[in-house]
């Protein structure tokens, strides 16, 4: 049996009932990784301890000890989330030798639930990008067509899940970085409400926007991961109180708003699949109608102002003195050492730091940053009004199909424009997820579902309902 194709629930149940061992399952995954990695390049690091940990879980089960709901389930972790003893590079030269002395809260919680970290997933350097092309470890390729991008910045997360190299992955989503690759790779990816999941141990890029989020092949797998990691954390004071538990319940008569600005801005091939998705939901008893989010046109400039401003501030900490890459301080003066070391940031990171420095410059603050923060209030107010009328809002996750590697890499603005549908949820701090909606020209299209703050349960109900009716879950041939 191909154990690497199973979902999280089956894996944990199979291991607990000793139908198969965690060791067998992890061995199969490691073989799979060896086979497909030359094509996909989803991993920065494959964990050397995964097999050992699988054996430990098998032993616990043999000894009759209690194991968690994710017992034995292999997860990949985006390489900007700290893993104790496993190098965490952010796909950057600046952190090529960084081995964190601690686990991020999400990693600790997954491991407490029994999960096994199988490796660190590739990303755009410091999570800045929409294609995973800005990685020091080479581009991750889309498992559905390896000449195309997998989306980004959590491209390694989504590609590793889609290519059956792990069961679940954790990514981070600052402006769509979980949902975009989930959409491009035909996976389920969720960005939670701001404050639902701890960011402790996530390397900061734009902290007022970003959240860690799970990626899986099914809504059920995403729920399992979410239940393990969500909830308050004293190490991240922006987390909300409590520990929610989500389930795959059913609800009749969901009120669904199709955001017309999202569908109007999408390529015809994408719009066609999304319109079919609306029919599918209507066929399941949802009340679907068109809704308008007029201020969406201001979302992207607002997002790129805030993201670059926060990036320029957050990345100021990388001075290469206490950790970093090997560059002797001998012979350098204070400032010239930092300028030399920091010239090793990649192209896109440098570009964003400079744009961020520009918008925060004296005299420009009111013109850019303040306005961008006001747009967030405007968007939030508009969305709040819509969520009085609708349980969920839907549209395409990405306005275009996965494109060829290299197509947009030299035109940063063109690249930024593909985030148009995803940044809204980050600016408003609201939850959103991407669910496989179908294929156009053999390439995946994702349906984005958004809900009001902390209404993840409603969003998951809609996602599960759609998933069950559309039956779009399949795997690429590799």
């Amino acid at each position: 049996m191909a154990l690497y194709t199973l979902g999280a629930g089956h894996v944990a149940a199979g291991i607990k009932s000793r139908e198969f061992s965690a060791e067998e399952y992890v061995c199969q995954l490691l073989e799979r990784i060896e086979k497909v990695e030359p094509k996909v390049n989803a991993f920065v690091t494959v964990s050397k301890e995964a097999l050992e940990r699988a054996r430990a879980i098998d032993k616990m089960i043999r000894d009759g000890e209690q194991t968690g709901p994710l017992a034995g389930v292999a997860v990949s972790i985006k390489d900007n989330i700290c893993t104790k003893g496993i190098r965490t590079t952010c796909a950057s030269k600046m952190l090529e030798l960084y081995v964190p002395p601690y686990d991020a809260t999400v990693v600790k919680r997954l491991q407490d639930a029994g999960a096994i970290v199988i490796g660190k997933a590739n990303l755009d350097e410091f999570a800045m990008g929409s294609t995973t092309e800005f990685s020091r470890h080479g581009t991750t390729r889309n498992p559905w067509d390896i000449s195309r991008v997998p989306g980004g910045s959590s491209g390694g997360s989504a590609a590793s899940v889609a290519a059956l190299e792990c069961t679940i992955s954790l990514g981070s989503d600052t402006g769509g970085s979980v949902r975009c690759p989930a959409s491009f790779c035909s996976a389920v990816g969720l960005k939670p409400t701001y404050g639902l999941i701890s960011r402790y141990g996530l390397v900061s890029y734009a902290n007022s926007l970003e959240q860690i989020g799970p990626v899986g092949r099914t809504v059920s797998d995403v729920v399992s991961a979410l239940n393990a990691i969500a909830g308050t954390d004293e190490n991240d004071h922006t987390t909300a109180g409590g520990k929610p538990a989500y389930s795959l319940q059913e609800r009749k008569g969901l009120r669904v708003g199709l955001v017309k600005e999202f569908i109007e801005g999408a390529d015809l091939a994408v719009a066609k699949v999304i319109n079919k998705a609306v029919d599918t939901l209507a066929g399941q008893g949802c009340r679907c109608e068109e809704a308008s989010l007029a201020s969406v046109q201001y979302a992207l400039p607002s997002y790129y102002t805030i993201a670059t401003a926060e990036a320029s501030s957050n990345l100021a900490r990388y001075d290469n003195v206490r950790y970093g890459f090997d560059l002797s301080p001998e012979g350098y003066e204070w400032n010239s050492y930092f300028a030399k070391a920091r010239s090793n940031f990649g192209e896109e990171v440098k570009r964003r730091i400079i744009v961020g420095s520009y918008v925060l410059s004296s005299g420009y603050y009111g013109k850019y940053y303040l306005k961008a923060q006001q747009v967030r209030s405007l968007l939030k107010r508009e969305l709040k009004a819509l969520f009085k009328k609708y349980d969920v809002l839907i549209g395409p996750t990405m306005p275009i199909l996965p494109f060829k590697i290299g197509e947009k890499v030299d035109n940063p603005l063109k690249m930024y424009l593909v985030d148009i549908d995803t940044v809204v949820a980050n600016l408003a701090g609201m939850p959103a997820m991407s669910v496989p909606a179908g294929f156009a020209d053999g390439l995946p299209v994702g349906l984005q579902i958004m809900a009001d703050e902390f209404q993840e349960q409603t969003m998951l109900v809609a996602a599960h309902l759609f998933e069950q009716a559309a039956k779009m879950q399949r795997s690429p041939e590799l």
Partner: protein
Amino acid sequence: MVTKEEVKHLGWLARIELSDTELKRYTSQIEEIIKYLDKLDTIPLEQFKPIVAKKKFADLRSDEPAGFEGDALGTKYRKDGFVKGPRMV
């Protein structure tokens, strides 16, 4: 209009050494990006307050240091138990 000198100055403020080729490329790209961000200046937003964090400082946990086990530093440049940095002057 974003000039090459401005980009060079911003690079210096951010302590990033930029080569001439980078300066040339970044100047035109950043000009295009800033022009796009200028769209923000066209919206009447006077009635909207900027979004703010909900938590107050009083809600924060107490600021007590908690060390990591073992050697948490990632540099080999050390002397007498200290990390060696570049000289100040």
